């Protein structure tokens, strides 16, 4: 038997290939230098951060110069099209922003292992694989790759009990959801013997012409329900959200940034790929599931967030609320749904970059030697006097999250509601609007704590470094001046999400 490796497959795969080779080279470099007595056992974490930035800029060139055609590669385990190319570009830019965000905090948090950035590159590699996956088997493999990296990253501060607890919780629940995913895949494969997306979509198109949805074998529907449940677990959508606040609270803030920014968009992209193309004919089934999840995550994400006193738990519930909005975009099954999802995710990423840039720079001095991360919301009091710039940017970002008109967050919700109205889900839209009005209360409560509450003890913060300030200003300026020419970004995202 002769194995034929298509040259064009390798040609498309070059960015990922470069990423893998870089990982190997950086691994050898890190091990060699960090254990070298001659160089005095140097701490390479900052150095690795800049190397990651260089790597990503190279891959940016490689990705932009990849050919523009639609194809599946590696015997149809993965696929490639034009919109994927631009989404990969966005991921790389966000990755560079992320490195700038955390590069000073890893030394403040004493995270002196060079493997942190190595695992970060590997997670970007696995994200590339996930968003380009085209087969049920490669979904499992690439998702497992991402999850394994994230379990390690959640536990990376192994001396802290919070971190180990969070890592263990993440691991057990993540493995549970992966088990559900595998069981669903096994049911579908056992029933029809197909794993490829195109084959699945062809199969369902032909079967739906002849039969109604009630005549489809129930094993298949059960498999679909299991797979979507696994995805909801990974997205921490509401009935399956229990793990996410605990995990977010326990892990380091710089790593939580990675989880929040990258996982949601990746899994949503995969969800759209799988359910929007191959299982599209069964939308009667999975639309109901997404509607239920949207309802619950809007409801619980808003009302449980009222009770939170810690800022990271608050952010976790806020992200559950966001997932609810994105679920609305998913469940309105029309052509605009995908585009409004991508648009919402872009603004979501921007908001999170800004909010974590401000949270990461809020480290107050306990004495001249030690500083620690701010944890409670009540510690934000008189931030307007102690750190006015960050207070103002938190103000802008929270207004954006709650959807106050001139700022970008308003437009995302608007577009999601419009696409939802097009597929005539009126009651859901009314519910979502009411919920988002209620949710403004607790965002504005934080603004009130920052600007109007009084406190006699003034906290002293670690000065903000240049790279974090760059990311913060990038996010805040883009959110604020988005209203000047909203069509520019909206149209470009529309083009990205619709060219194939």
């Amino acid at each position, binding site marked *: *038997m002769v*194995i034929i490796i298509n040259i064009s497959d390798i040609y498309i795969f070059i960015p990922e290939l470069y990423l893998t080779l870089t990982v190997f080279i950086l691994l050898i470099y890190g091990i060699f230098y960090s254990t070298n007595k001659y160089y005095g056992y140097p701490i390479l974490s900052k150095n690795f951060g800049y190397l990651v930035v260089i790597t990503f800029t190279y891959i940016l060139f490689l990705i932009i110069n990849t050919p523009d055609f639609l194809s599946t590669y590696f015997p149809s*385990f*993965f696929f490639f099209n034009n919109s994927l190319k631009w989404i990969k570009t966005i991921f790389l830019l966000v990755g560079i922003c992320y490195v700038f965000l955390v590069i000073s905090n890893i030394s403040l948090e004493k995270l002196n292992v060079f493997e942190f950035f190595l*695992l970060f590159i590997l997670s970007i590699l696995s994200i590339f694989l996930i968003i380009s996956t085209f087969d049920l088997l490669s979904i499992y493999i690439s998702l497992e790759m991402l999850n394994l990296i994230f379990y390690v990253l959640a536990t*990376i501060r192994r001396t802290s009990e919070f971190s180990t607890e969070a890592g263990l919780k993440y691991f057990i629940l993540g493995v549970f959801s992966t088990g559900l995913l595998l069981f669903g895949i096994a049911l579908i494969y056992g029933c029809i013997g197909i794993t490829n997306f195109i084959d699945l979509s062809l199969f369902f198109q032909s079967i739906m012409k002849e039969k109604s949805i009630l005549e489809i074998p*129930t*094993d298949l529907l059960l498999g679909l329900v299991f797979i979507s449940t696994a995805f909801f677990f990974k997205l921490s959508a509401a009935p399956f959200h229990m793990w996410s606040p605990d995990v977010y609270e326990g892990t380091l803030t710089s790593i939580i940034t990675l989880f929040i920014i990258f996982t949601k968009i990746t899994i949503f992209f995969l969800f759209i790929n799988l359910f929007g193309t191959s299982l599209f004919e069964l939308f009667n089934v999975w639309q109901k599931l997404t509607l239920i999840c949207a309802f619950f995550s809007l409801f619980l994400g808003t009302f449980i967030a009222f009770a939170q006193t810690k800022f990271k738990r608050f952010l976790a519930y806020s992200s559950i609320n966001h997932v609810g909005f994105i679920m609305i975009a998913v469940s309105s099954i029309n052509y605009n749904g995908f585009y409004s999802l991508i648009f919402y995710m872009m603004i979501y990423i921007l908001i999170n970059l800004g909010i974590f840039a401000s949270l990461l720079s809020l480290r107050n001095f306990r004495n001249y030697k030690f500083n620690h991360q701010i944890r409670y919301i009540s510690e934000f009091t008189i931030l307007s006097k102690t750190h006015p710039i960050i207070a103002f940017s938190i103000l802008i970002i929270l207004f954006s999250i709650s959807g106050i008109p001139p700022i970008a967050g308003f437009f995302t919700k608007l577009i999601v509601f419009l696409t939802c109205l097009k597929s005539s889900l009126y009651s859901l839209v009314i519910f979502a609007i009411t919920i988002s009005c209620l949710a403004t209360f607790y965002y504005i409560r934080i603004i009130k704590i920052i600007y109007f509450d009084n406190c006699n003890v003034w906290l002293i913060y670690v000065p903000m470094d240049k790279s974090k300030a760059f990311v913060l200003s990038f996010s805040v300026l883009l959110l604020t001046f988005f209203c000047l020419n909203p069509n520019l970004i909206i149209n470009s995202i529309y083009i990205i999400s619709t060219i194939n």
Partner: protein
Amino acid sequence: MSSELVLFYCLASIIIVSSYIVISLKNSVFSILFLVLIFLNAAALIMMLETEFLAILFLIVYVGAIAVLFLFVIIILNVKLSEFYYSIGQYILIGSILGIIFLVQTFLILDTNIEFHFLDNIHNLYPEWNFEVYSQSNIEALGSNLYTNYMYVFILAAIILLIAIIGAIVLTIHQRGYVKRQNILNQVSRDFKDSVYYINKIVK
């Protein structure tokens, strides 16, 4: 009733009984031994489907690695008796209700009898020699598929193993600067002529 069906019922009932014993025993070492019994019986079930490779893999991975790992953990932790003294009556009502609902739903969805499906795959007793000679064996078929059609996924699995190694090293190795380590290069390259010398050699 054919002999396969009798065998299936025997193995399946042993699995169910011993899985109850696993969760009901107080002594965790015994419960792990019963877990091994479950794995053995499940491997026998897989063997009945004539997929020998999967059965052996099941034994190697679960009995050889995971059960032994469990035993190690229990012996290292030195937990003789389980600390959870709970009464079963607390959970028996809600547990049985949930279990019955689950069973009913499962049998409604998988409406055909599971064991008849199971026995469909078993060939008749007399071996078809023609078939036996010219067909690939289990391992051959798996290997030829893994290394050709599924090659790329296989390579990705290798990268996952690399990540697991990196993760294990990050989470366990704690490097301290002040610990004295053995440097083999220095030891080997040491010359016996220079190792013992008078002090005044340095003074000069």
